[in-house]
């Protein structure tokens, strides 16, 4: 613990003109008797920083409280050894720039913030990085174009790689292609580079171990220390790896579900995958009679962009059909090719290939909807298309129909698999109630098809594979962070992550491999990966008081916590992202970080001086997400927007780390209201830890019930969703809340 932190107050940037700094210093000196309290007119200049460095070097202090500007600025100036306890009290953006200068309320606010900062430093302990034997070997699952690329890229950066492929040969779907989309100027020529060269490089690379006909039986442990058991033709083997790239690719959508488009009607209705194989295997011939193909019709979005099948766009089928049209004309320049589409999607330079296809006189492209495929008397297939560019309804007779079917990820939904397993366990339990059983049966019915799809076979409490995002892709939810993963150290790449073509998949492979490398390097330094990259703190559990309620193991967004048979949480610290969601979930308050804990925040709340009821000065506590809401409040300060001086802001790593005991503490300590400001939740959630703000909201619901029992108005607590760019809204939201609290009158528990 930083028993004797030094306090350094800056009087620059109009702090000194707004706050009585000598009086503020008295708080540190007489209330806290800190060993050092110094005031400087420009603390961030070299002379000011030197004051601090000198006291640290002399051993006069064992922690630093800087009462100056926001922790978001002057980070270079105030950069000390990361193991030194440091707290930054935001006197500038959160007091001097947004409050009435030299006002009694402004002074009280500054003094409270200083008190909160000092107790926080006093209660925080210096960090020590965790250390363990970290394996830098990387496992790549899947030996298609993505996996091959990932393996090579990783090995070429100096890392050992184990590549696991379930098939007997490497290469995946791309190795079956006749030609690939153009990737180089002028973007009109198909290329023939398959994956043969890559397969060869991988096979002979000294740093890559290839396992074909191999299946993962079990993956236990955590990043840096995954122990993977693999079944191979030669028997079972075990290997330890540091991180994992999941590159299991895709499978074509099941065309037997596309009877309405003629699949199954005649052997001459084929899928694009079947067509590719026909073309790669030699001259394209009609499957029914082996005759040459004189006319072909391509049905775009066969099963894609269709709410009854695949609701998403498979992204590659437009280019694929244009390529297939080129195959047809290569073989028979006089063949008629029809392409019926919803929209032709050839982004970027692929537009050139589309343009070249449009220029071919025998390519007929039309927007339209295929409403029927029948056998015509001539032995041809008759396709009825409606809403076309030509007419409302047309009938085209062709020799071959190709359904441009879409891509389905070869993924397993770890969370769904876990849910079925739990449901089965519930049914087996003698003490399960009837509603529980009904619920379990429903779950089994909807999710049973997930059983047996396991890929990674993680021994995680939250399921054996990555959780699936929308439509079964284990993708990231974030625009800016496509490699964000809910299982630290495991990164999906290629078509399993999102529908994409081979060129894109190869780039994706490199990106995912970088993340895998970065994960082992950060773990080796004992530090967190994104979004708290570099953080050395980690949670510890005082298990003697654990009641096995399992809230932490269920709510951790990253599957960090496993359970023993009794349900006691077992920490796998290298999986942890340091969000503190578990800390917020724990009703026994036994989870804490050295510099962030239930007790630290509770002490900060206690440090707020609550005026007597007759002073008519309410106090409102505001918990803010430090990633988005807190910066927004900084900007309000930068814009010199004034807001109610009754508020005291405490930043949280994530609103999901909110422990409701803090609300009880605040209310029983006479605080009149508690406001929570966090990220947007719901489908398009913006929380960096997925469900933090939503979990906080759920916890609040419980608190509100308690409040009602205590005859306290539930309006005294409110959660607001706010985005970082909504800084103009924030002061108004704060004022509005305080206004309502004033209307409600003082907290009746004040003074008790």
């Amino acid at each position, binding site marked *: 613990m930083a028993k004797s932190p030094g306090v350094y107050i800056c009087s620059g*940037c109009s702090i000194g003109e707004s706050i009585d700094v000598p009086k503020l210093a008295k708080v540190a000196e007489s209330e806290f008797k800190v060993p050092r309290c110094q005031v400087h007119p420009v603390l961030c200049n070299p002379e000011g920083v030197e004051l601090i460095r000198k006291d640290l070097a002399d051993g006069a202090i064992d922690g630093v409280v800087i009462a100056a500007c926001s922790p978001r600025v002057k980070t*270079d100036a105030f950069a000390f050894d*990361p193991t030194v306890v440091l707290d930054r009290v935001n006197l500038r953006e959160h007091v001097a720039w947004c409050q009435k200068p030299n006002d009694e309320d402004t002074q009280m606010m500054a003094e409270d913030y200083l008190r909160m900062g000092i107790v926080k430093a006093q209660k925080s302990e210096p960090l020590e990085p965790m250390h363990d034997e970290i394996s830098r070997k990387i496992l790549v699952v899947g030996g298609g174009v993505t996996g091959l690329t990932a393996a090579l890229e990783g090995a070429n950066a100096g890392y050992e790689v184990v590549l696991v492929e379930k098939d007997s040969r490497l290469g995946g779907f791309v190795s079956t292609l006749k030609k690939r989309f153009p990737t180089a100027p002028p973007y009109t020529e198909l290329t023939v580079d398959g994956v043969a060269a890559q397969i060869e490089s991988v096979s002979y690379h000294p740093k890559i171990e290839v396992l074909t006909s191999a299946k993962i039986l079990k993956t236990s442990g955590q990043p840096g220390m995954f122990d993977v058991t693999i079944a191979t033709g030669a028997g079972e083997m075990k290997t330890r790896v540091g991180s994992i790239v999941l590159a299991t690719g895709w499978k074509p959508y099941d065309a037997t579900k596309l009877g309405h488009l003629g699949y199954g009607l005649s052997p001459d209705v084929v899928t694009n995958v079947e067509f590719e194989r026909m073309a790669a295997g030699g001259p394209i011939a009609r499957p029914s009679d082996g005759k040459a193909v004189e006319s072909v019709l391509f049905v775009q979005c066969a099963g894609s962009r269709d709410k009854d099948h695949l609701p998403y766009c498979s992204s590659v089928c437009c280019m694929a059909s244009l390529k297939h049209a080129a195959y047809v004309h290569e073989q028979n320049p006089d063949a008629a090719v029809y392409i019926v589409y919803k929209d032709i999607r050839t982004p970027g330079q692929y537009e050139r290939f589309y343009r070249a296809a449009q220029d071919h006189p025998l390519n007929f492209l039309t927007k339209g909807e295929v409403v029927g495929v029948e056998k015509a008397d001539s032995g041809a297939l008759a396709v009825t298309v409606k809403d076309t560019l030509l007419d409302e309804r047309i009938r085209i007779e062709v020799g071959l129909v190709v359904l441009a079917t879409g891509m389905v990820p070869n993924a397993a939904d770890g969370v769904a698999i876990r849910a079925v397993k739990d449901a089965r366990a519930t049914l087996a339990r003698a003490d399960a109630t009837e509603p529980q059983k009904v619920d379990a049966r429903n779950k089994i019915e909807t999710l049973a098809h997930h059983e047996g799809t396991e890929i990674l076979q993680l021994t995680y409490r939250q399921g054996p594979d990555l959780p699936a995002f929308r439509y079964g892709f284990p993708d990231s*939810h974030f625009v800016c962070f*496509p490699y964000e993963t809910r299982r630290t150290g495991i990164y999906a790449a290629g078509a399993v992550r999102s*529908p994409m073509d081979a060129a894109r998949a190869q780039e994706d492979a*490199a990106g995912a491999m970088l993340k895998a490398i970065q994960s082992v390097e950060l773990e080796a330094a004992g530090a967190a990966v994104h979004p708290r990259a570099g953080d050395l703190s980690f949670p510890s559990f005082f298990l003697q008081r654990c009641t096995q309620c399992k809230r932490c193991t269920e709510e951790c967004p990253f599957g960090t916590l496993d359970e023993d048979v009794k349900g006691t949480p077992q920490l796998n610290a290298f999986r942890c992202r340091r969000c503190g969601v578990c800390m917020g979930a724990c009703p026994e308050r036994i989870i804490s970080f050295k510099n962030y804990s239930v007790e630290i925040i509770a002490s900060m709340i206690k440090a707020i001086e609550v005026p007597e009821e007759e002073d008519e000065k309410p106090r409102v506590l505001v918990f803010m997400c430090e990633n988005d809401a807190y910066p927004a409040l900084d900007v309000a300060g930068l814009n010199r927007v004034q807001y109610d001086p009754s508020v005291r802001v405490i930043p949280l790593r994530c609103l999901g780390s909110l422990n409701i005991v803090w609300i009880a503490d605040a209310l029983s300590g006479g605080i009149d209201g508690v406001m929570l400001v966090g990220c947007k939740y719901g489908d398009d959630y913006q929380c960096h830890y997925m469900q933090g703000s939503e979990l906080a909201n759920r916890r609040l619901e419980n608190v509100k019930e308690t409040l009602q029992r205590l005859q306290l108005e539930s309006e005294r607590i409110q959660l607001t969703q706010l985005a970082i760019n909504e800084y103009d809204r924030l002061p108004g939201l704060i004022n509005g809340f305080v206004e309502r609290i004033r209307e409600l009158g003082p907290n009746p528990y004040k003074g008790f």
Partner: protein
Amino acid sequence: MTQTQVRDTGGRPVLVIGGGIAGVTTAVEAAEAGCDVILVEKLPYLGGRVARLFRYFPKLCPPGCGLEINFRRIKINPRITVLTQATVDDISGSPGDFQATITVAPRFVTDACTLCDKCAEVCPVERPDDFNLDMDRTRAAYLPHRLAYPPLYVIDRVACPSGCTACRDACAYGAIDLTQQPARRTVKVAAVVAATGWAPYDATKIDNLGFGRYPNVVTNVMLERLAAPDGPTRGRILRPSDGQPPASIAFVQCAGSRDENHLPYCSAVCCAASLKHVTYLRDVYPEARITIFYIDLRTPGRLEDFLQKVTADERLTLIKGKVAGVEEDPATHDLMVTAEDVMGGRKITQTVNLLVLATGIVPQTDGLPAGFALDEYRFVAHSNGGTGMFAAGCVTRPEEVSATVQDATGAALKALQAVVRSAHHG
């Protein structure tokens, strides 16, 4: 707080040119894997084009959210050196052992800046606000935008009256140095990543669409600023001609894109961007009538959901067809849009209060040093290993942010490989 260091590769640094989302990502991803990085940005702040977007499709989340996280990663990582207002003039040498010459233009404001705003208060002149695409003005001493990184003011000396030193005299922190000169430095680097991004296609070149002639014809990038709370209309999207709210708005897709006379490629993001703009308009004008003229609606992958969600809007009409011409009613400054309705097989004319051109993406390669292979549209061709010179983001092809970040992370790996090799070979 400084970050604990991951292991040292012992290799030379990586030079990243361009500090948009591509360059910022390459820099943080490479640095967190153990590379030293020099990030060179031409403008006085990082973030590039996305810093000027109001929201991202499809989540409608603010770009500042991800940028803030990335800036935090930069702040705590001593391996990253950020040089703003800087350009790379020249690169020589070979992979693993390049020598690069960098010119840093004077900011006239030092790290001692505290954001106190005194300089802007006393500054006597204004300049066009390039952050707001010149639709607004700032003082010559200004902070580029509210969440700018680095958080430092900057002085546009070109706009200053000659001999004026008012800002310097007002700064209590001695943070203004009006004698600063451009500085040149030479660095040895293992790899170079071009991430210089894109610029919007110059809409005045699209003669028939009236941009530049008619005030109420705006571009999609302008609409991003008009919708933003820190934009010229504080988030209310108002007609430039009279500052009135528009009741009817039309979008022209592929304005310049997919056109042999302008950009022969598809700019890939403008379809989803216009759909997003429909949501901006809906937020402020629930009743407005909106039309999108398009050739194909290109929203690949799960953007399909976004397409479905936005087009469920009853006051939105989609018309497949190319816009032939735009005329202005001189009295009202309304616009008459003539288009061919392909599905209906007829010509139609519609009058709207505001017209938005979905202009495309042009690679920004003019300022790149020699050595990068360009295609005929001046995109950097995706270079493979061995060259030590890589590229990421919209400078390689038109693409949205998540694809840009994906690229950039891959480029960080290519750079790491070169760095590791440079360590082995000295």
